[in-house]
């Protein structure tokens, strides 16, 4: 199982690539809606990509109330 920091890095990399935002502009505690310029539907799209990348299944409710990369990564880490 990868370390949490590696998971977090991969989440940030994937988000940056998917939504074409420079990686260096993203930090773990950033609000991803604001930093990526996305709405809740696009956030679900990000979740699907993360699932495919990490080979986990994340129910939609795992995103409820989540708006920063660090918490998102912790939800993924818990299922690895």
């Amino acid at each position, binding site marked *: 199982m990868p370390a949490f920091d590696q998971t977090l890095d991969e989440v940030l990399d994937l988000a940056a690539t998917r939504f074409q935002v420079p990686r260096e502009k993203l930090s773990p505690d950033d*609000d991803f809606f604001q930093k990526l310029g996305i*709405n809740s539907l696009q956030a679900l799209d990000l979740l699907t990509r993360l699932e495919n990348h990490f080979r986990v299944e994340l129910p*939609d*409710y795992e995103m409820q109330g989540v*708006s920063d990369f660090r918490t998102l990564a912790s939800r993924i880490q818990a299922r690895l």
Partner: protein
Amino acid sequence: MLDLKKYQCLGEALRDALDRWPNEVCLIESDRDRERTRLTYSDFKETALPLARALQDAGFRAGDRAAIIMTNQSKWLISAYAVMLCGGVLVPLDYKLTATEHLALLAHSQAKVLFTEFHLWRAITQAPGFDSLAAETILVTEAPGSAGLVKAFRWEDYRRKGSPEFIPRKRDDWASIVYSSGTGGQPKGCVLTNENYLEQCTALTALYPFWPGVRYLSILPTNHAVDFMVGFIGPFVCGATVVHLRTLRPEFVRDAFVRYRITYLSLVPMVLKNLERGLRSKFDELSRPRRWMLDRLIALNRVLTRGKPRVGMSRLLLSQIHGAFGGSLRAMFVGGAFMEPSTLQFFYDLGVPVSNGYGLTEASTVLTLNDCKPFRSDTVGKPLPGVELRILNPNDDNIGEVAARSKTVMSHYLNNPELTAETIVDGWLLTGDLGRFDEAGHLQLFGRKRNMIVTEGGKNIYPEDIETAFDGLPVKEYSVFSANYIWPKNKLGNESLVMVVRLEQGQEFTSELREDLAARNRRLPDFKRISGYFVVGKDFPRTASMKIKRNQLAEEIGKTMDQTAVVEL
């Protein structure tokens, strides 16, 4: 469909529906690409009756309240029907609220029973105030085998043998308490009666009929009055099928259209715009000749459907596009927030009528709906049969507050006679929305009388609810407003919240203060955030009891400042 005029209550109508169409499929539940459940009306009845019997044996009586906090799924509807069989009152709550908000509404509604999902129950048990939860019977779905449920039971095991006693209710008995989103400071529980629902169902199905074989894709939350009606009651009293998806990822929603050959669905503007964006980008990827052909076919479809939709013909002309929607789609319903006319036109031109409507929870949701005969993208349609609308105090442009009178208007707000008296005056529901009728009898909306916004996702946001997020902001005073309330634009769309700030004497708006404000703003869900702020040079007008006189403050600002003074966050 059943003749709803014969029925006194929803429970009675549904009971007859289950017996009328025992072998028709009523529910399909899918999780990603896996179908989890497929129930006939007979299966539904066999699952609901032992649950209702167990509730009755535990002392659940006519008029008792049962809350449901679940994502859309078959267990939601089964639980609701079990409550109706017992003569109970449903309290459908939004699963997206926080656990603290759930506890507050459970207390306000005095729900005796709670049906919820395991992850939501876990959050509730960990929330402050959990010890004061008064619900006596809590049923939790899909709890893992080893999970401790505190004082709850597993929904799947909560059954008793023997038939429950069917408890009939009358038309004016309460059927549900539905909380209007956003509180303006207090919960607004709309008490809807059996008559409200039966009348609404009759009116809606007259315009858009259901029958056995029709499949409704239920993606709006069932706690909301729209999905409760068109994603439960409406299909069931017509022997039709409801399809639930446990995940709303766009790729699985697309698959569901095709796999289940969906007939109808309801959407909020945000989802429809997302769908439009996806289709447009696919069209842009076509080769030039194919794009040219597609544009010609769309233009031809537009001409041929000028007077009314011709879904069969549109499916032939634009077969690939309709194939992607499953080939059986007759209409999509949209409402809850402003919908851009260009998006509606886009779908209509493809031969997928999108019926734009308007209403509020206080009116069992739908007051007006477009029947697309002919298609109008610039209105929210005509009043439903049985609904009277009038425009109060129209200005020179004939725009005024929309008032409604109908058997679908709620009984009252729970425990709030003052607010009820302000909202339903001489039998007319004052909507707080501004509109006028055109020559064709269509309603056009132009803004709101109230200080609130409606998000693209259809959520009502009251500025007073947002202010608590900024408690402790080191300024003299502040207040949040809908920007359109201060600077009315006479049209809907592009709604935002702004904060007006009054600094202490000698205080400056430093970068630290701005960052403090921005950090507090970021802690709010994105749809509740303020878009900007501006500073005023005098103290806010207040009442003798020191409440801010919001109307006066908004008026003063509107007269003396321009919206360009707002600094974006």
